Structure formats: structure tokens, C-alpha cells
């Protein structure tokens, strides 16, 4: 295996897909979501009397709980599937690059696109909310901590939704089910069942880092090291699984 050719191939695909995701039609979704988050958090900021707690709760609910998996789903579940469906995947499938590495060339731009979008959306929300209360060091700390969480979330959710895109013919439907029903419903239930969601481990990390809002007082959090290990393990497992399935996939 020629390492240079592999790295060149991954880099070329990453560059191409990042550009497509960040500057293509899907960029409109990021802008709309950012405007929406700005409006909601702006209004909430004008009504809030306890900015640090309320702002943190909003970031937790709106960004981490809702838009994080939704944006990863929108970007990720259709990335490979759309190319399979419109057959533009042909030039990748007939390139001298092992498909397992091509898969990595889809994963990296997906992570970049989801992370950039979520950082932009989070930033707009934070400034719309805390801008009305003075952006102090504690607000900055909340901002940085949530940015870290959305970046970690981008790695995990991207691996999940990209794998769904290879596994299923209708990944958006499966993604919809996962993002809304599984993460939204199962992840909100009390007891051990909520441990079966990515959100649980992201919030567990958040509960250790963030000092304000409900997330800081959350009593069902898993340990930081356990959560880190699980998220890392899950990401690697999903990447390997997705790459294997993509390699074995017949592109009829």
C-alpha cells in the first residue's frame, strides 16, 4: 500500500467534500438554524434574570440536546447515500484508493462541516443571549466549555450518521428516528436506559466541566473517564464498521 497515495486521496476527498458541505446548498440550513437560535436565545436573554443558569440551560437544551444531533444527521446521513443515489460516487469508487480510506475521506470533512456549523450556531446563540448581560469571564467559560462539547459531539455523531448512510437505503428516516425518538425520548428517560444515548455521555462530560445550570447539578452523570472512553470507543467502532461496510458494498 502506497502511503503517499492514500494520504493524497484522503486529502483530496476531504478538501472536495468540506467545500461542498460548507459552501453548498446545505449552508443555507446552517444560516437558518443560526438565525433561529439567535432569535430564540436573544428573546430568552431579554427575559432572563439569572443569565448564567438560564444561558447554560438553553445551550444544553437547544444546542447540545437538539441541534447537535440534528445538524450531524442533516450533513451526515445523506453524504455518502446521496452520492450513491445520484451515482456521482463513481469517480471515487473507480479511483486507485481503497474504499476504506475513501470512507475516511468522507468522515473528516463531515466532522469539519458539523463542527464549524455547530461552533457558528453556538457562537451566535451565546452572543445573542449573554450579549445582553455583559459577556464576562464566566460566560466566556460556559461558551468555551460548550464549544468543546459540540466539537466532541461532532466527532461522535458524524461517525454514527455516516455509518447509517452506508448501512441503510433511507438513512434520513433512520437518522430522524435516532435523532428525535432515540436521543430525544430514550435519552430523556430516568434511570439506566438513558445511558444508551450519545447525549448522556456528552452531558456527563458537561456536568463535570460546566459550573452553572441544570447540567452542573445533574445526578445521573457517568464518570468523565468512562464517558470519554465510551465516546472514543463508539467513534472508532462506528468508523471501522462504516469503512468495512463501504469497502464491501456493491455499487450497482
Amino acid at each position: 500500500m502506497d502511503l503517499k497515495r492514500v494520504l493524497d486521496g484522503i486529502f483530496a476527498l476531504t478538501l472536495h467534500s468540506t467545500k461542498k458541505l460548507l459552501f453548498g446548498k446545505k449552508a443555507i440550513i446552517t444560516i437558518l438554524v443560526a438565525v433561529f437560535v439567535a432569535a430564540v436565545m436573544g428573546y430568552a436573554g431579554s427575559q432572563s434574570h439569572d443569565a448564567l443558569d438560564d444561558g447554560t440551560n438553553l445551550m444544553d437544551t437547544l444546542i447540545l440536546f437538539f441541534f447537535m444531533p440534528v445538524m450531524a444527521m442533516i450533513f451526515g446521513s445523506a453524504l455518502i447515500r446521496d452520492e450513491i443515489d445520484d451515482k456521482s460516487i463513481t469517480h471515487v469508487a473507480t479511483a486507485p484508493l481503497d474504499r476504506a480510506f475513501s470512507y475516511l475521506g468522507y468522515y473528516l470533512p463531515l466532522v469539519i462541516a458539523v463542527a464549524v456549523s455547530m461552533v457558528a450556531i453556538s457562537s451566535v446563540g451565546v452572543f445573542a443571549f449573554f450579549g445582553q448581560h455583559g459577556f464576562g469571564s464566566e460566560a466566556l467559560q460556559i461558551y468555551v466549555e460548550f464549544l468543546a462539547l459540540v466539537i466532541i459531539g461532532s466527532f461522535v455523531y458524524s461517525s454514527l450518521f455516516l455509518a447509517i448512510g452506508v448501512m441503510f437505503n433511507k438513512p434520513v428516516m433512520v437518522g430522524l428516528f435516532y435523532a428525535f425518538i432515540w436521543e430525544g425520548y430514550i435519552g430523556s428517560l430516568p434511570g439506566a436506559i438513558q445511558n444508551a444515548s450519545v447525549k448522556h455521555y456528552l452531558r456527563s462530560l458537561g456536568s463535570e466541566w460546566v459550573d452553572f445550570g441544570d447540567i452542573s447539578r445533574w445526578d445521573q452523570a457517568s464518570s468523565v473517564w468512562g464517558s470519554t472512553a465510551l465516546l472514543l470507543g463508539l467513534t472508532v467502532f462506528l468508523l471501522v464498521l462504516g469503512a468495512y461496510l463501504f469497502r464491501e458494498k456493491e455499487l450497482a
Partner: protein
Amino acid sequence: MGINPIEYHPWKGNRTAQNLRLYVIARSVFRHKTRSIGVIILLILGFLFVHTLNLILIIIVPHEGLEGSDMSSYLGNGTFVVFAMLLAAVVTSDLISEDLANSSFVLYFSRALKIRDYLAGKAAGALLVMGIFCALPPVIVAFVSLLTQTGDDYWHSLGVLGETALVGGLVTLFFVPFGLMISSFTRRKSYAAVGTFMSFFVLFIVSNVFYEYDKGWRIISPIDSLSILFTWLFEGDVPTYINEGALLAIVASLIIVPAAVVYFRLTRQVVGK
């Protein structure tokens, strides 16, 4: 040799058999949907989670009559509306988007078919499918309750049965225009399904966020607004922080505005804009 001009004479005849055309479209939608695996799975899950348990409870628990409060807690707990929302997203997702994607529009509107009839046919088919989950089972549950009641105030129970039918009809109707509107915005049915479900879910999230500051915001959540409306219909009162006029305006606007938008959107599509 000169070129002979083609003389164009617009068609000035009368459209006939409009109702038959509408019926054919509705029947086609209904048949297609009731054979779809996704719709069948959702219907089965919905029956299991929403209706079956209530039906069993009504049969085994002795009751004096059919009470509005029972129907309110059965239909207003959120699960019924969430399933209706999911079903509407799946049922309406391809109704217009697929016609846009495969250019069936040309086929439809090259015939003597009006946009109004096309939309009515599509909506009627979707409403029939929605009715299987939203209207029929609640009426059956209410009817079974009426048949198995121990008391003899049947007029009161019949009244609640009527209210149940009204609620079922409202939920059947509520999500379809919005789903059709989103379906007319895209050529991909998966995006239409996600768009429909997400739009309602976003309103739900926003309502929950703003509820912390002003409880009146509850009405912008379709799940909550329908639940409050059911309580109002069955029990005659609404929470004090809810403005009845605003509630009715929100519910009506979520039906009327999307219906108008989809009509004008299709009018523009047909003339190629």
C-alpha cells in the same frame, strides 16, 4: 418554401368528471400509502402504544359512563399527537415532492385538471390514511366505552362520543396541510418528511424554552396546543394563562396558512417559476 405559422387556439371546453378525477387521485394515494411498509409499521406501533391499552382498560375497568376527562387524558397526553405528527410526516412526504422530482406535474396538468382538484385529491387520500389512526380508533374506543358503561346516561356519553369524533377529525386534518406545504418545497421525499417533523418539533422545543419566561408560549407547540384544545372541548376549560382566541388562531393558522402556501406554490410551479 415559406414557413406556415402554427395557429394556437386555447382550449375553451368544459372540464368534465372533476369529482371522478379527484376520487382517482385520492384512491391512488390511499392505496399506495396503505401498502407502504413505513406507514404500516407506524400504524401498528401507534395502535399498540396509543389506542390498544386504552381500549383494554375501558373494557376491563367498570365505568358508569363515557367521561370527557377520560378521553381528554387518553388523547391529550402527547403520545397520540406525536404519533399523528410522525404519521403525517411519512404520509405527506412524497405526495408533491415525487411529482416534482419525476415531472409528473407535466402529466397531471397537461390534463384538464385544476390545481385545486389535484391538491384536494392528494389531501383527501392523505386524510383517509390519517383518519385510520387519528379518527377511527378514538371513536371505536369511545363507542366501546358507551356499550360497556354501567350507568344509563347514554345522552351524555353520546355527546362525548361526538366530541371524540370532532377531536379525531381535527387531528386528522391538522398536520396534512403543513406536510403538503413542506412536500411542495423539495424534490426529495426524505427531506420533506424530516422538514415536516422537525418544524413541529422545533416549535415544541421553542415553546418549552419560552414557557420558562411566559406560560402563554405553550400554545405555539402543536403538541401542547392540541392537548389544551382537547381539554377545552372535553372538559370545557383551559388553563388561566392561555388566551382562547390566540389558541384558536394558532391552530387555525397552522391549517389555513400552509394550505394557502401550497396552493400558491403549486400555481407558480405549474407556470414554470
